[in-house]
């Protein structure tokens, strides 16, 4: 029960000089030490716990509003999507999303279903967002960026926590974490429930509830080896559709997500280390449209998708010569999808993917740092890509850095884009003709980073130019004889993004301020032609897409998050989010200018961050009742928007 004291008592009282000879394991190993933002080869935004708490947000994608240049949309009260640089439809396909290094960017759509992730907000340590391609260090499909969600480890020194939220629109959340830390074995259990009634529109069915649990263990049998095992499960019921409609009727979506991951790290001499990682992910999506009958006829087929992924990766980190730090490794992945509604005539093949990667950080001189890396991959569809990246960081003074970088990255076609063949009864069905090429992203940037330690300010600004070639989109009339399924997919567009973005951060004595801004534009042109371009309807559709495409990027967007401690126990935080009008590619009409303000007032009790302490808070979202509309891709009466809502939060640490 009291291992430390009993051991200490048993230990020789005279052994106090052992403090100086103590053999200690290498704890802060190379892979554990994060690269400081001014030495990284990419622009990085970090959303830490303090920001997560101050924002008052309840869902992970909402937090991404705190990333410059990130568009966050919501199809309804629960199904959100995030896309760096916008230009997306509600299947956001160009960002890699990792949870503790495990990719949750899943087939068949190659997207992330955020509400399914068995990740409790209370478990998140921080979210690191890489703005720009980072295939060399984060694997395939990190085409526009990487969102890496890092959760608390089993042996983190944090008190257990119970959190409850309750408020308007049926907000009812509860979560609990429980950890047991031992000398060599620790475990952490967390479970939670999140529910709300979605948006206020009465004809909108979007009430939702998600339950989840996670179990994580850390085992350190000796000084060299560490084993991190995690497993988790989530189950979600989400209302979808519109009351009284034939297309997209109101019904429930049932989803499940479960996973297990084991990471074995072995520390070697001189800070080098080996890491072996295996994970398994299963997700199931069950859209029970079959329950919708009209006049005794079953109008829509049931959509059921099962996805299974196995992934194994080995990685070695070492300093192979003075000034060099090399990370290299390789991995294999098996992606299997089964769905009778999406793969009606032919099942989707199981994809066997391979990758090898190497990244070298070369400190050429004290103030010059060169990051060079590349990844080679076989996407299992017959494509072999090499994604290189090079960035030069120059610290012209120790606290001021210039970075210039270029990288190339690919997005492999989604399984559904390459192999989809839907049930002929599915509205908007398609029959993929295959033969797609990966989308190719060329990104270039110049950035400045400044740090003013005396005053607690940090500045980051960058100019970027990203070219996305061969963007895959719907080929609306591919199979003239395909019956209902006459659409396919094709590499059709070239989009050039350019602009600048910046952030300003201040932190001093617990008070914090973050300001993000981005100004960007997209220029879109044809990089291929739809099969039946001779058809006037197809031509009209294609031209319309090209005309709308630049509007799919909000010209100006930004966010401000401020936290101020009025007294020892009273704090106020405010989040302000704005975004110019934006036309999401598949939306019925543009989203109007957003000008939203959230306020959180927190009263804490007990000692900060210590068991038996805690806080109660009032969160008001869209405080000033801004009337902006959200994304909507169905013709409907009224458009979803977030009205002012408030909830109470109570957290108790034990």
């Amino acid at each position: 029960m009291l291992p430390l004291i009993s051991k200490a008592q048993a230990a020789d009282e005279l052994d106090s000089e052992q403090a100086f000879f103590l053999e200690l394991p290498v704890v802060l190993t190379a892979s554990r030490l994060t690269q400081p933002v001014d030495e990284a080869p990419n622009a990085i935004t970090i959303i830490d716990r303090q920001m997560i708490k101050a924002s008052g947000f309840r869902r992970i994608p909402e937090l991404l509003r705190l990333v410059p240049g990130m568009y966050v949309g919501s199809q309804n009260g629960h199904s959100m999507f995030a896309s760096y640089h916008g230009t997306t439809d509600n299947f956001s396909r160009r960002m890699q999303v990792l949870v503790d290094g495990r990719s949750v960017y899943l087939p068949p759509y190659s997207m992330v279903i955020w509400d399914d992730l068995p990740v409790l907000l209370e478990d998140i340590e921080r979210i690191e967002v890489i703005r720009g391609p980072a295939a060399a260090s984060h694997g395939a499909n990190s085409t526009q960026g990487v969102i890496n969600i890092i959760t608390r480890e089993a042996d983190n020194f944090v008190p257990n926590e119970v959190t409850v939220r309750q408020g308007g629109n049926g907000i009812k959340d509860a979560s609990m974490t429980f950890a047991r830390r031992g000398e060599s074995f620790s475990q952490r259990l967390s479970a939670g429930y999140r529910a709300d009634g979605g948006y206020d529109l009465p004809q909108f069915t979007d009430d939702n509830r998600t339950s989840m649990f996670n179990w994580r263990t850390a085992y350190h049998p000796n000084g060299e080896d560490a084993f991190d095992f995690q497993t988790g499960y989530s189950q979600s019921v989400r209302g979808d559709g519109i009351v009284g409609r034939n297309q997209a009727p109101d019904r429930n979506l049932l989803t499940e997500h479960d996973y297990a991951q084991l990471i074995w790290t072995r520390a070697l001499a001189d800070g080098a280390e080996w890491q072996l990682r295996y994970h398994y992910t299963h997700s199931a999506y069950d859209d029970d449209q079959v329950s919708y009958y009209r006049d005794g006829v079953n109008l829509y087929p049931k959509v059921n998708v099962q996805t299974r992924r196995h992934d194994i990766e080995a990685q070695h980190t070492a300093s192979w010569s003075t000034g060099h730090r090399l990370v290299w490794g390789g991995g294999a992945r098996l992606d299997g999808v089964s769905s009778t509604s999406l793969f009606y005539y032919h099942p989707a093949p199981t994809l066997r993917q391979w990758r090898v990667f190497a990244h070298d950080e070369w400190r050429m001189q004290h103030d010059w740092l060169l990051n060079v890396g590349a990844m080679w991959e076989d996407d299992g569809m017959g494509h072999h890509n090499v994604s290189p990246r090079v960035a030069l960081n120059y610290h012209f003074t120790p606290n001021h850095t210039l970075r210039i970088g270029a990288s190339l990255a690919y997005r492999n076609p989604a399984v559904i884009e390459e192999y989809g063949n839907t049930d002929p009864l599915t509205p908007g069905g398609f029959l993929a003709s295959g033969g797609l090429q990966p989308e190719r992203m060329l990104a270039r940037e110049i950035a400045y980073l400044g740090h003013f330690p005396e005053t607690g300010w940090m500045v980051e600004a960058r100019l970027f130019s990203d070219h996305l070639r061969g963007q895959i989109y719907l080929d609306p009339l591919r199979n003239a004889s395909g019956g209902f399924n006459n659409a396919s997919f094709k590499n059709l567009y070239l989009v050039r993004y350019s602009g600048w973005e910046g952030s300003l951060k201040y932190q001093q004595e617990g008070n914090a301020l973050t300001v993000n801004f981005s100004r960007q534009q997209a220029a879109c042109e044809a990089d291929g032609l739809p099969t039946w371009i001779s058809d006037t309807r197809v031509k009209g559709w294609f031209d319309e897409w090209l005309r709308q495409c630049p509007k799919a990027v909000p010209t100006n967007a930004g966010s401000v998050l401020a936290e101020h401690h009025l007294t020892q126990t009273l704090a106020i935080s405010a989040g302000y989010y704005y975004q110019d009008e934006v036309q999401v590619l598949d939306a019925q009409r543009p989203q109007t200018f957003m000008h939203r303000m959230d306020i959180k007032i927190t009263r804490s009790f007990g000692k900060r961050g210590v068991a038996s302490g805690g806080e109660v808070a009032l969160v008001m979202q869209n405080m000033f009742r801004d009337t902006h509309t959200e994304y909507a891709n169905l013709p409907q009466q009224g458009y979803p928007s977030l009205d002012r809502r408030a909830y109470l939060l109570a957290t108790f640490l034990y």
Partner: protein
Amino acid sequence: MTAVPTFSPLSYTNILPRKSEHRIALIRWLVLVCSVLSFQTLQAAPLKVSLALSEEREVYRAFESALRDSLDAHQEIQILPSGNVAQAELIVAIGAQAANDFRGSSIPVLNVMVSRAGLEKIGRDSNSGSSGIYMDQPMARRFSLLRAALPQTKSVGVLISNESPQLAAAKQLSSASGYRLHIQTVATPDHLASSLSALLADSDVLLVLPDAEIYRSDTIRNILLESYRQQVPMIGLSQNYVRAGALCAVYSTPLQIAEQTARVVAQFAKTGKLPDYQYPHEFEVSVNTQVARSLGLTIKSAEQLRIEIGGNP
């Protein structure tokens, strides 16, 4: 040597009848022999030193071997075979166990490879014939390193289980240097986690004080991870701490302490007196540059820091 001819058998025979003269000569001879012998003893008989190891341990062996090498240069010092303590004129007690074994010994003892706290527990004042070289660095030197390595520091955190002389020194130096010293006492091990989190929230740096109840090979992991998580650098006690993930440490190697020990032993051989207890004179500084970078700290090189805090160029 005028007396030498009197020893010849011939002259002996010649003087034989003169009995009184014979007696005087004999005494003179004995005095001479004795004086010659005793003169030779003072000049050539080396100081007998016994090295007593606490236990078979790599670090003690390394020290012993370094000490033997250093003492080899001194002909006036003889190292007795191990275990031969009875004939020793000076015992070098290596480690705390040996210090305890020879506590109150009538033979002078030089305690080395032992912490100040350990020696104080044994009660060094009970044996006035002993002295020693502490393993610890003087607290002032550790504070010099703190100032040189992290000039922005305003508040220093220490985690303790008990009051100690180190803590008293840290308190004194903090107020002299204008640092806020946050002291967190860990009542029971269950409180280590919460005590540490609370301490780190208020501290710019975590200064490790030797404390066997807090800093152990099985707790260091969590302590380092938590301090890294809260972006608070740790100032360790040894190179092992730095390797594990502490930002920096000032420490003396067994070789440096062995050389200092050899100098003290040689001084004893010459004067018959042991100097007072002392701290290591020579030291090294170690810096974990990867940790520094990751914490976004600009830190001088280990060698620059060593010179800056008074190390020999």
